[in-house]
């Protein structure tokens, strides 16, 4: 069983909204207007509101925390550059997903495979101790292991299937919206998603059977 240290971050206490959690969600159009006028704090607020959506999508598409961080940064820089192109009559979220998928495709071509670290090594080197906190170590590792297997399974999928599955099942978007974001037909998306779900299940099954 292998797991990368970055996977362990997700077992920590949820504090992803950080200091901005209490910030009142402002109207997006107003934020865009201010950001276009050069208001950096307004654009920071845009980032805060959408960073999770972008980061999780990028992480599942790219499979690496570092590259996902780079991708998220790139998405927001690109967003800042093309703010003037945003049509307020349309929903912002699909446009941002589209941008995220495009950035991930670009990065996916360049990045190298990251080395894996076995879970056994993590157990031995004590890194897991700091994760445990007040939760039971074994159950935490069990859940992390399940998630890790599925996260690894995502990597074996062809890019198009992975994109469809991440947007449909992990981000929970309707098939029609996924088709729009990926520029495919709904029938194609359904076919890709169906195939990806079966492959993921088979991968997890095989992995668990091989486990001592």
């Amino acid at each position: 069983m292998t797991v990368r240290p970055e996977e362990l971050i997700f077992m920590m206490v949820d504090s992803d909204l950080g200091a901005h959690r209490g910030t009142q969600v402002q109207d997006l159009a107003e934020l865009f207007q201010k950001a276009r006028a050069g208001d950096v704090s307004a654009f920071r607020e845009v980032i805060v509101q959408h960073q999770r959506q972008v980061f999780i999508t990028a992480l599942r598409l790219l499979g690496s925390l570092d590259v996902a961080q780079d991708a998220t940064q790139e998405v927001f820089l690109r967003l800042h550059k093309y703010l003037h192109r945003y049509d307020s009559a349309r929903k912002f979220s699909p446009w941002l997903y589209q941008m995220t998928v495009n950035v991930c495709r670009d990065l996916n071509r360049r990045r190298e495979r990251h080395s894996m670290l076995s879970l056994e090594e993590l157990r031995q080197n004590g890194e897991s101790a700091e994760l445990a906190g007040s939760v039971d170590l074994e159950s935490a590792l069990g859940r992390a292991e399940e998630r890790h297997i599925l996260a690894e399974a995502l990597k074996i999928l062809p890019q198009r299937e992975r994109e469809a599955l991440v947007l449909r099942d992990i981000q929970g978007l309707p098939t029609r919206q996924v088709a729009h974001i990926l520029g495919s037909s709904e029938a194609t998306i359904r076919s890709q998603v169906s195939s990806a779900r079966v492959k993921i299940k088979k991968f997890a099954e095989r992995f668990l059977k091989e486990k001592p």
Partner: protein
Amino acid sequence: MSCENWRKQVALFLEGDVSGRKSNQVEKHLDICPACRRFAHELSQSQTVLKSLGHEAIDGKVFQAIQDRVIGELASGKAAASQRWWPSIAWNWGWTGVVTLGLLLLLGGLAFWRPFRETQPVSNNRLAGPAALPEKNSNGPTATEVRNRAAASSREFARAPTVIEKAGTVQKHRLGKTLRKPPDRSAESTVSTAEKLSSENGRPVGPQPGEGKASLEVAQVGSQEVKTGINPEAAVPEPLVIKLVTDDPGIVIVWLVDQNGGLRK
């Protein structure tokens, strides 16, 4: 339908991705097929874990770092530089391929277009020779350019060990038809131009020391009968110069033939 095919439908059915009629069919199959029922159960479990990947807790430091980096880039003004369109295109193989294809098409088009341009005026002036070409021609090379090429051809010919005493009558063979061009004075002007151009290049036209005894002058290329006066001791009878004009004005095939029909050496 085999169970393998049913399972693709089951994978959609579990998440509500199939229509009502199809959904009923899947349900009926699951009722009668225990293997597919087990498959559906296991798949729903993996789907539960898969969906949980979207709800994982993420350390706030990760997001804080992203915000700081983005805002830092924007504040330092590097964003504009890093977002130029060309770096991403440079890494994009698709765009690289498109650009390469475009360049190849452009070069190919130019390669075909140039001979076409050169062919048009030459075909109109084929019998008149380069001396008759206008100095300014918007559709092809100028007369000066043609003369330059002729001068270069004559120099090449001068290096050959061919001995020519006197240029004969020039004939043109095209599509099996022999045309005879009456001599005129324009050839002499062409010769003088060629000589001038060659002299300017540091190499006079005509026999050079240590080279062949004679050379074919531009006047011959210009399809004219000209007495060059080169090598007066050379052979008799007078040779015939036969010039084959191709569609490419840069390619002119010239035969020197004795009047009895044999090729001169």
